[in-house]
């Protein structure tokens, strides 16, 4: 009796058991527990991966994957024949790049400013208010922004009008559209992105500040010589990780803000794949472009995780 419990305990807590099979015998339940997640992932994540073979076919929905004819790389070749495609890739990089820079800088500065607040209740209020937009969807925020930015009487243009600025069509003019996308994304996410910096700020050793103060450093000097250097590694990691997402320029946001007026400057890969593939029914073309994006994205993500691990010791698990 005692022996069996002891051996069971060894198996479940980590020691090597005498009989190799007993690890599975004792812990078979663990495999059953992970099974639902495995099955759902197999069906809903791995089966669609098999579906990317459509990119190499002339896919016809009524014939299905098994019945459609194989055409090799023709879909990929025809990608480059579309003049839209190069523009869409450029838009994706541009919008995404501007977002990454803004998303790195804004929360950093905000965290530094918030860190100087000594009044705890005020600090909590500020945090509560700036986190809020993160939890509202782009559908809701899109609806709000369309109303707010309308050139005919939207609140923003009315305020600008007070200063003599003629109405700006923020969501209808290509160049203003990109600007609006980047700024509204900062508005939605900067507060939430601050959380991680605030956590890092709380972790800075107070004796560093004491030492700096003894040496006669002003608060500004303390910020530049103690706080900023302490946060830079984290900023590097966040920047590196966001590089992995450079081809994800924000489907939800773009889709809810754009219109045919700004397709040329505002279309990104994801919205273009949706419109061409699902809406216009060009399945093979859509999948080919989507696959192109996924492969390059995966390469970017792997590189960015490697860099984050090497320079910031960051691990996913």
């Amino acid at each position: 009796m005692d022996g069996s419990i002891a051996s069971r305990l060894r198996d479940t807590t980590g020691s090597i058991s005498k009989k190799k099979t007993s690890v599975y015998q004792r812990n078979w339940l663990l495999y059953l527990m992970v099974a639902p997640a495995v099955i759902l992932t197999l069906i809903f994540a791995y089966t669609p991966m098999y579906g990317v073979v459509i990119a190499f076919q002339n896919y016809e929905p009524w014939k299905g994957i098994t019945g459609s004819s194989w055409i090799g790389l023709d879909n990929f070749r025809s990608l480059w024949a579309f003049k839209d495609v190069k523009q869409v890739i450029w838009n994706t990089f541009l919008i995404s790049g501007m977002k990454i820079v803004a998303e790195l800088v804004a929360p950093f500065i905000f965290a530094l400013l918030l860190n100087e607040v000594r009044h705890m209740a005020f600090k909590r209020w500020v945090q509560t208010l700036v986190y809020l937009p993160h939890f509202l969807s782009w559908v809701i925020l899109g609806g709000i922004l369309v109303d707010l930015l309308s050139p005919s009487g939207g609140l923003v243009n009315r305020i600008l009008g007070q200063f003599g600025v003629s109405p700006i069509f923020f969501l209808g003019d290509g160049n203003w559209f990109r600007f609006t996308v980047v700024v509204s994304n900062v508005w939605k996410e900067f507060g939430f992105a601050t959380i991680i910096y605030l956590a890092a700020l709380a972790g800075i050793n107070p004796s560093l500040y004491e030492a700096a103060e003894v040496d006669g450093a002003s608060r500004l000097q303390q910020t530049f010589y103690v706080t900023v250097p302490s946060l830079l590694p984290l900023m590097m990691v966040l920047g590196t990780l966001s590089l992995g997402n450079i081809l994800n320029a924000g489907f939800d946001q773009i889709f809810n803000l754009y219109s045919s007026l700004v397709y040329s400057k505002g279309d990104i890969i994801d919205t273009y794949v949706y419109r061409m593939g699902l809406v216009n029914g060009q399945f093979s073309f859509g999948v080919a472009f989507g696959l192109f994006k996924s492969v390059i994205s995966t390469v970017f993500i792997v590189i960015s995780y490697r860099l984050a691990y090497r320079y910031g010791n960051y691990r996913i698990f």
Partner: protein
Amino acid sequence: MYYKSKSYRIFAICNTLLLAILSIMCILPMIHVLAVSFSGKAAVSGNLVNLWPIDFNLDAYRKTVANPAFINSILVSVERVVLGTTVGMLVILVGAYPLSKERNVFRFRSIFMWFFVFTMLFNGGIIPSYILITKLHLMNSIWALVLPGAVSVFNMIMLMNFYRNVPKELEEASLIDGANHLQTMWNVYLPISMPAIATLSLFTIVGHWNSWFDGLIYVTKPSNYPLATYLQTIVVEKDLSKLIQSANDMEKLTQRSIKAAQIFIAAVPVLIVYPFLQRHFVKGIVLGAVKE
């Protein structure tokens, strides 16, 4: 001390002002929309409404609540949130437990880990997913909105990290008492991980409530859209024909108040859940993201 110096005090005042303005700017758009939703037609179409309702009335809300499509979409969303959160949380609560074990207890742990993490790196894209859902005959079913996203790998990894913080002694005691792994997880791990579970559940609830795109492609009957999808087609597509039937209604209300009312109603559950959420999530995110 530095904070007693004159220049620092001037900075502190400016800083406080700046932060106050920034945080108010984060919610002003919401307040404006709320004001529009409560205002009369003349004031709205004359662009007179700023942050306070003019000619206060509830017509936009009355019209919205009387609209069966809107009410039905709320019911679909509620069903989705309940089913989606239950299934999603159960799967990761149970699934994260084996992954939190050491390799010599849970053999092939790293293969399982990579099996899940790979789906964060690469996916088939929307068109193959769409074809899959049609092939499984899940179109127009609530399960098409619940099952594909049920395994949130990110949440599972967060939970796994929490499970790993549970003291080994508690697990040993439970196993000596004769409990199996499932009982141990349920009776020992869950109660200790409650803050993490609360955070992840609330994130899942908000996520399901806000999801709109899958509703748009997997539900073909607009009458069965979840609220976020319904709102997307109405508010963003600027299509009011489904909502306003008679010319008389057009007279009484501008489309802007109705849109504003619908936007606000859709945001209410998030605004209610948010304060509960906020208490926990900061700790949750930091623990999940920063590891020793």
